């Protein structure tokens, strides 16, 4: 019941509403003590069975329910073999390169007599056909060590990457050392026209002729 005379006072309430304190929901103060979640209480042992129907279905004791079986973790393969790739490399090297000759021949970081980038090399394969070329790079990768050869055959550049420990490789011969000291390990700039060595067939043919004269046609294996 609002009298017409009290109408102007009625708007005062609406003004006051803005200053009302917020409702006390989700309010937590520093003084609020943290309480642990209450633990689940087991059902009383001597509960009469007629009360069971009052308990929600998921809390009722189930005689058929069995605890989950926990299996032990399988034995760790990592513990059995610490360095599997190293082990495979070693076992393969023992088969493919028992004397370590090939490894020494391409270990250009340690062996000063090894093949080096920039050398001209002649590779003979098992099926008999050779491939000659300048060594552009040697990739030392354990059993997958390979070297990249570049040559020009019938005025077409041909590059071939050969695996050092491949059983298909019969022999690798150094035909000519690079004439100047190479400061780089990867001579990919030799693909440019300016630095291209072009064909090395003549040099290799010369070498083969000399070798035949020297050895009397024998085929020396390195």
């Amino acid at each position, binding site marked *: 019941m609002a009298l017409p005379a009290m109408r102007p006072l009625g708007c005062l309430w609406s003004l006051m509403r803005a200053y009302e304190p917020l409702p006390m929901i989700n309010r937590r103060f520093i003084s609020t003590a943290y309480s642990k979640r209450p633990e689940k209480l087991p059902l009383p042992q001597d509960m009469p069975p007629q009360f069971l129907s009052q308990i929600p279905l998921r809390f009722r004791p189930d005689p058929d329910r069995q605890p989950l079986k926990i299996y032990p973790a399988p034995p760790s393969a990592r513990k059995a073999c610490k360095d599997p790739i190293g082990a495979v490399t070693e076992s393969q090297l023992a088969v493919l390169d028992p004397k370590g000759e090939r490894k020494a021949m391409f270990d250009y970081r340690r062996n000063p007599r090894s093949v080096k980038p920039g050398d001209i090399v002649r590779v003979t394969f098992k099926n008999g056909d050779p491939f000659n070329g300048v060594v552009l790079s040697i990739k030392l990768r354990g059993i997958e060590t390979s070297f990249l050869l570049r040559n020009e055959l*019938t005025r077409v550049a*041909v590059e071939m*990457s050969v695996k050092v420990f491949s059983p298909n490789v019969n022999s690798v011969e150094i035909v000519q050392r690079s004439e100047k000291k190479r400061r780089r390990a990867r001579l990919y700039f030799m693909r440019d026209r300016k630095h291209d060595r072009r064909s090395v067939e003549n040099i290799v043919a010369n070498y083969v002729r000399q070798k035949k004269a020297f050895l009397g046609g024998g085929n020396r294996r390195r």
Partner: protein
Amino acid sequence: MIQLKTLLSCIDNSGASIVECVNVLKKKRPATIGQSPIQSPPLRGRTRINQMLCAGDRIVVVVQKQRSAGSEATTAAALANKVRRGDIRHAVVVRVKKELQRPDGSLVRFGDNACVLVNKSGDPIGTRMNGVVGQELRNKKWSKILSLAPVHV
């Protein structure tokens, strides 16, 4: 990696010097010299993947440039040309610039992309070839091309 619009040099004496690939036959991926088929057990419920990989190195090309292409179209050399500019022919890829892995792990890369023109039955149109070709052709029954080629790598 020969695909649509790739320009290849033609290394036989059929008369074409530069050709353009317009289609790769029997293959859903760019043509190459061709991998040798690697035998693997067939996957259950699928076709053999390796069959797709070793399917083909045959392409369809358009002759873009003729050998001895000049104003004198009536010279003997031009008459000897078996194909003309604008002809659509089949070809076999013999060199690719993209490196190719052999079954023994070695890689081969050529300086250019090249092909040899063949007719529909697979016989080379030219009678002579100049230039090195890939050895992969051996597995692919292109021995005719291999015997014509001066060098194979």
